[in-house]
């Protein structure tokens, strides 16, 4: 029979009750099936890369890879990825801690403001920085600019996790005589690890696939080399060989992140965020230092790029053209991004739930796979879907469905990293109790799991909608003919050198991006509303 509710451990660092296995298998029977769908979709680019590499032949692939240039690309790619990841961890964690655990004035403002750099596409920010001069057009500049645009990918999940953690752990740590640093390191940080590691892995794989920003900042990586083989020889075989290297680079990172999280169970009963955590008092020079750092961060990550955008809005004779396309572009952006974000969330939930609940190797590997594919440049994923959809289901080519599948493949990890933090905190015992009271598995999912992970879903939707709204490569190739989005219009105009004509679309893109950041950041401030 079901395990009695009385045996519920309050902190579940203990292993789950021994009576569970037979029952758990039954309870989770729908999960592996539901998780199979995203796994199959995410495998599509792998199939394509395999087919194309096989066409090139092993000898050609090795000849392509065993060159001095490959080493240089490797150094650049790893340096960029590692540099940006380490810096985003530092900034993301620091900012999240300041807004959630100190008595910083205007905390609610800073909470939202710190997420705002997400409204700027990396290529807009890098164009702005590149336009200052050659000082930033190198690896160091690229690391700086991309850190400024991507630290919210670490900040948001960590801040959400900080809100959901039980301050009780910290109280106990302090009551046992631990200092603030020790309390942070031993009582708080372990609870943040899933969110922190997930965010960092996301940033790292993101950097591997980055292209648009690097073209302006003059840094060559594997992804720029992949673009080159498409551009110069229309050679998908070499591109596929280079893609394999990129995915291999993602493997140790994905493994490391898994190790970092380990077998730790951090679920707890009750919502910790209901109680106010102990706030560190900031006074005098410490307060001034934090405020100055926040102001500097805001000026660099938001002020500079927005200023450049504003300059182009105000100047130039190509302004005034194409405004009739503004509304169709907004409609396209909203339609694609919202339906894409919803579909991807639906696909991601079972995948993460399975990996958190069933700590089997297969479940873990399945949950890691999207992160590996996330390191692939968008062009490879888009061409994979061109190739496969026309051969497998030609009727759906260049329909919304294929575009949404492309979005899901590209951005599944964004949903996973946001969801993971929430799902890790949900104790399986609550589900056991619900099952013991006669609820069916799907009922348990809708009445227990879904409401409890709502903050994670909100963050997932926000992050995905933001990325999808600015997605370009897959949208250009796969969107239904005749539709347009703000991102494709911005690209179309800047491609022809008409920055001023692009500015209203870029500005709308930014305005549109503010909405999800604002709504979801606000929502997370009041999780019970």
């Amino acid at each position, binding site marked *: 029979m079901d395990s009695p509710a009385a045996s519920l451990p309050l902190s579940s660092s203990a292993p789950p009750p021994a009576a569970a296995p037979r029952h758990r298998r039954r309870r989770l029977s729908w999960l592996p099936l539901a998780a199979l769908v995203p796994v199959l979709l995410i495998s599509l680019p792998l199939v394509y890369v395999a087919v194309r590499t096989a066409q090139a032949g092993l000898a050609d692939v090795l000849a392509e890879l065993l*060159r001095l*240039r490959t080493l240089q690309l490797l150094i650049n790619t790893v340096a960029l990825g590692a540099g940006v990841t380490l810096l985003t961890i530092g900034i993301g964690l620091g900012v999240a801690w300041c807004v959630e655990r100190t008595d910083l004035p205007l905390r609610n403002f800073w909470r939202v403001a710190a997420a705002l750099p997400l409204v700027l596409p990396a290529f807009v920010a890098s164009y702005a920085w590149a*336009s200052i*001069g*050659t000082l930033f057009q190198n690896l160091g500049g690229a690391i700086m600019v991309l850190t400024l645009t991507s630290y919210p990918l670490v900040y948001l999940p960590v801040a959400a996790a900080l809100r959901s953690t039980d301050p009780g752990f910290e109280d106990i740590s302090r009551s046992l005589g631990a200092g603030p640093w020790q309390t942070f390191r031993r009582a708080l940080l372990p609870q943040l690890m899933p969110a922190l590691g997930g965010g960092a892995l996301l940033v790292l794989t993101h950097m591997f696939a980055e292209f648009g920003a690097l*073209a*302006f*900042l*003059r840094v060559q990586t594997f992804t720029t080399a992949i673009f*080159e083989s*498409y*551009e*110069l*020889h*229309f050679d*998908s075989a070499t591109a596929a060989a280079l893609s394999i290297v990129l995915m291999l680079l993602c493997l140790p990172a994905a493994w490391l992140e898994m190790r970092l999280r380990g077998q730790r169970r951090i679920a707890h009963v009750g919502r910790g965020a209901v109680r106010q955590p102990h706030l560190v008092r900031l006074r005098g020079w410490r307060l001034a230092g934090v405020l100055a750092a926040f102001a500097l961060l805001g000026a660099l990550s938001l002020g500079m790029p927005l200023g450049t955008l504003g300059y182009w809005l105000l*100047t*130039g*004779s*190509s302004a005034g*053209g*194409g405004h009739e396309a503004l509304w169709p572009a907004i409609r396209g952006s909203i*339609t694609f991004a*919202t*339906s894409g974000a*919803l*579909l991807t969330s639906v696909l991601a939930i079972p995948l993460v739930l399975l990996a958190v609940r069933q700590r089997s190797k297969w479940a873990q590997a399945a949950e890691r796979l999207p992160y590996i594919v996330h390191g692939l440049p968008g*062009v490879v994923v888009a*061409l994979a879907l*061109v190739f496969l959809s*026309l*051969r497998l289901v*030609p*009727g*759906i*080519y*260049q*329909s*919304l*469905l294929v575009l*949404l599948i492309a979005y899901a493949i590209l951005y599944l990890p964004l949903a996973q990293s946001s969801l993971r933090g929430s799902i890790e905190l949900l104790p399986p015992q609550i589900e056991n109790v619900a099952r013991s009271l006669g609820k069916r598995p799907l009922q348990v999912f*809708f009445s227990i799991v*879904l*409401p409890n992970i*709502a903050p994670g*879903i909100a963050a997932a939707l926000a992050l995905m909608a933001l990325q999808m709204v600015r997605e370009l490569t897959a949208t*250009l*190739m796969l969107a*239904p*003919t*005749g539709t347009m989005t703000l991102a*494709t219009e911005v690209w*179309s105009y*800047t*491609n*022809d*050198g*008409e920055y001023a004509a692009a500015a209203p679309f870029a500005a709308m893109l930014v305005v549109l991006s503010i909405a999800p950041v604002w709504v979801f950041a606000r929502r997370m401030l009041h999780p*019970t*509303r």
Partner: protein
Amino acid sequence: MHHSTRRTVLQRGLSLGIAGALPGWTASAFAADQGPIVLYNGQHKATTQKLLDAFTAATGIKVESRKGSSIQLANQIIEEGARSPADLFFSEESPPVAALAERGLLARLAPATLEQVRAGYRDPDGYWSGVTARCRVTAYNKKMVKESELPASVLDMATAAWKGRVAYVPTSGAFQQQIVAISALKGRDTALAWLKGLKQYGEAYGSNKAAMTAVERGEIATALINNYYWYNLAQEKGADKMQSAIHFSGNGDPGALVTVSAMGILKTAKNVEAAQKLAAFMAGVPGQEILTRAAAEWPMNPQVQPSFGLRPFGDLHPPKVNPPSLKGAEEALELRREAGLA
């Protein structure tokens, strides 16, 4: 009970999203068989739309245009293979169209269309044709260098005398064509030495726009680019406010290389007759006028005069290589790799 309200919101949101997404899912399945012809357009969106509107007004044939970068569209057509929905491909430069011709994906253009285009600027086998032409130039910042100081040949700009004063874009398509042209005209060693010189003394930029704006801002004295990048910026900024100007080397120098935008009809086109009509319109006088009034490029139909105050095409004196012979992207890459530029 906040849980139940949140659940309701979630469920409502999900069903709304799915319902909103459904209608579009099957839309493209119907458009395939009949109706408008499909153009894969790598050229300027608004200008091409003007051209297509005029075509539809003249013939009653509707055209659906899909905008993308020429190279991306060519790669897409290659992946699509025989199932490509495209009827016609209009590319910013000739190599993507030539790549499709090489892979046997194109049908021959009608002889009457080809005859409208200057000889030497269309495929000798008739699978594709140039539409408009542009010229490689040296953009220079007027405060940093005088036009008279610029050397007669672009080959002399990859030297110690020009250290730190020449911007070039090693990854740009026209630059590849320039490498091939130098190799064809002056030999492989000269091309290699030129690239090595640029690597040693020049400044590599990631995009032509970036190089052009760098010259305009006075970051660097000169840039090797296409003529229209300057005109684009001048139109944006006002020609009188420009700190930079452009220099045509002429004289058969590879620095004056002429490249073209190009078009080709897909072998798998569903409506070949209509696609041929559009190609004929693009090569004809009305189409050529629309295209060259909108961009600082030369018409490839000799009956049409260029705008923007461009000098007559006959005064460009480009080197004796023409677009159909500028194929060797492989060779260009090989040379760049040997020079350490790739």
